[in-house]
């Protein structure tokens, strides 16, 4: 690079107002771009974190979620007797048959109804999910009309707080504890005794069977045997894959929608950068002619002008990313289209998203600066010097 970086940088500082405005426009686009990716990543990580690599989930064949799955008691018993299932300290198999029911609860503040996942669980369920712990109160007593609620549910829904009472399935359920399941989907659920839930909802079936593998490699044997068993129309997935699949459709949609929006927005920002750079080139015609006269090549001039535009793009990228990073302090909730249940998640910023956002900003700078830089590089020296 022959023309010094300070030339490009100081030109930006000299016309600082237009630089800031142009970079601001790009920053807004980068903000939307980064926020959308962070949203999709937040949803994905929340659901992926919900699963464990050592656990397997057995669902009815072709069911995409636990809500769509039905496993009868006799079939659940066959699944629970498989040799790949690990045992706990007491020698009991680490397997839990669970029931999922969606129920409408009203949100605090808005009083708007939203679907919440109610999960009928057995005592082994907690052992299968070490990331789930009791944050307040106590665990429900088996055989009682007591429930525990995830921390996001407790805070967001009327009657779901500790000591409050929820009414569903013709019964009143007392909330005796609040679960902290970190950034997992369990934080958006309500857990109660499986037998009580089956009776209350009159569903003498299970939605899924969750089990801990003795060794992660045992998954393939288990999957092959269960899926080939003519008595069992089931599918076996690693729990982590199951939850990732749950996020896929919605995360993909968020990403696609966001990318379409940002591409449209970015056209405006690129045009803005282009106008700024054309104006910058127009006011520096003599200067560019002088540089060429001194011996700087067309390539040197092109690089210097492109660098200026790239610096604006970088500035916009950093500003947008900085603003988007503040979004990590927010948690939002929405209905997951795959499970039809409300799930709460945070905007999640990853190094990959940060790099993509900066590259996006630089890309806008590159596109916005290319034509003006080309115009500058193609200027005739004599005509440029006469432009006073």
């Amino acid at each position, binding site marked *: 690079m*022959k*023309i*010094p970086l*300070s*030339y490009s940088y*100081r*030109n930006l*500082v*000299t016309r600082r107002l237009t630089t800031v405005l142009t970079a601001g426009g790009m920053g807004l686009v980068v903000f939307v771009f980064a926020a959308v990716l962070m949203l999709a990543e937040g949803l994905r990580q929340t659901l992926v974190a919900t699963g464990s690599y050592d656990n397997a989930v057995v669902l009815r064949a072709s069911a995409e979620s636990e809500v769509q799955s039905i496993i009868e008691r006799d079939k659940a018993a066959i699944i629970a007797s498989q040799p790949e299932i690990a045992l706990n300290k007491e020698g009991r198999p680490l397997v839990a048959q669970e029931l999922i029911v969606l129920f409408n609860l009203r949100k605090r503040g808005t009083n708007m109804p939203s679907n919440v996942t109610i999960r009928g669980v057995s005592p082994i369920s907690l052992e299968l999910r070490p990331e789930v712990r009791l944050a307040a109160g106590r665990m429900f007593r088996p055989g009682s009309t007591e429930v525990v609620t995830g921390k996001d549910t407790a805070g967001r829904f009327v009657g779901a707080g500790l000591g409050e009472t929820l009414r569903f399935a013709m019964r009143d359920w007392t909330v005796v504890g609040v679960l902290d399941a970190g950034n997992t989907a369990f934080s958006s659920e309500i857990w109660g005794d499986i037998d009580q839930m089956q009776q209350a909802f009159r569903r003498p079936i299970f939605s899924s069977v969750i089990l801990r593998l003795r060794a992660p490699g045992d998954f393939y044997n288990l999957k092959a045997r269960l899926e080939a068993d003519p008595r069992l129309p089931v599918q076996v997935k690693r729990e982590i894959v199951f939850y990732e699949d749950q996020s896929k459709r919605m995360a993909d949609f968020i990403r696609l929608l966001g990318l379409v929006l940002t591409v449209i927005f970015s056209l405006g920002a690129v045009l803005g950068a282009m106008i700024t750079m054309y104006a910058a080139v127009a006011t520096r015609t*003599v*200067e560019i*002619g*002088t*540089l*060429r*006269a*001194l*011996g*700087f*090549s*067309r390539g040197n001039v092109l690089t210097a002008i492109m660098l200026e535009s790239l610096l604006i793009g970088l500035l916009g990228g950093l500003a947008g990313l900085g603003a988007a990073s503040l979004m990590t302090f927010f948690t939002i909730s929405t209905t997951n289209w795959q499970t039809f249940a409300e799930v709460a998640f945070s905007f999640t910023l990853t190094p990959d998203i940060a790099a993509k956002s900066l590259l996006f900003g630089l890309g806008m700078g590159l596109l916005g600066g290319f034509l003006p830089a080309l115009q500058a590089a193609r200027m005739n*020296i*004599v005509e440029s*010097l006469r432009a*006073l």
Partner: protein
Amino acid sequence: MAPESTPPILVEINNLTKSYRRGVQIIKVLENVCLNIPEGEFLALMGPSGSGKTTLLNLIAGIDQPDSGLLRIAGVDISLLSESELAVWRHRNVGFIFQFYNLVPVLTALENVELPLLLSELPRVRRRQQAELALKLVGIYDRKDHYPRQLSGGQQQRVAIARAIVSDPVIIAADEPTGDLDKVSAGEVLQLMTRLNQELGKTIIMVTHDPRAAERASRLQHLDKGVLNACTV
């Protein structure tokens, strides 16, 4: 007493023609110009507006290309050079002084003077030393960290002269170097150019309207309607 040796011819121009196209109209600016400039000469080119003196200077300085004719400088026919070769040639052989100084406003005086050296292979320290030396030579070293807007016209032109000599060029091409200066500043700049010619032996080709500036030159050539003098080949 030994006879004085004739300095070698640095610029050799023969039958040089240049025209510009304005729409469908072709305007002949220079017609069969012949001119030899010996090394170390201080040549002033005068003539009315539109006579082609700046065009001739631009051709000699390699920022424009002739239509036809010979244009040989220090043994190189620069009319045969490609655009990129010409850019390299300009950087190595020509120093420019413009009427309106043409300093880069966002660079300091020192950085402006250093600019041509960025095209050389010199390390940064050597570049700085050379630029500082050029500024000392033109007597404006104390303003090295000033931006052009912080300098007067005369001071800016001194910086421009320092930029023109910093890479030790063969020719200094000056286009109306005093055209934008008051009488005192113009006198100082001309004094400086005379010193460059007499003390450092620089070949200077200066376009001017100012007869007082032309008086400083060792030779004066008049151009009128693109014609300098008849060629006798």
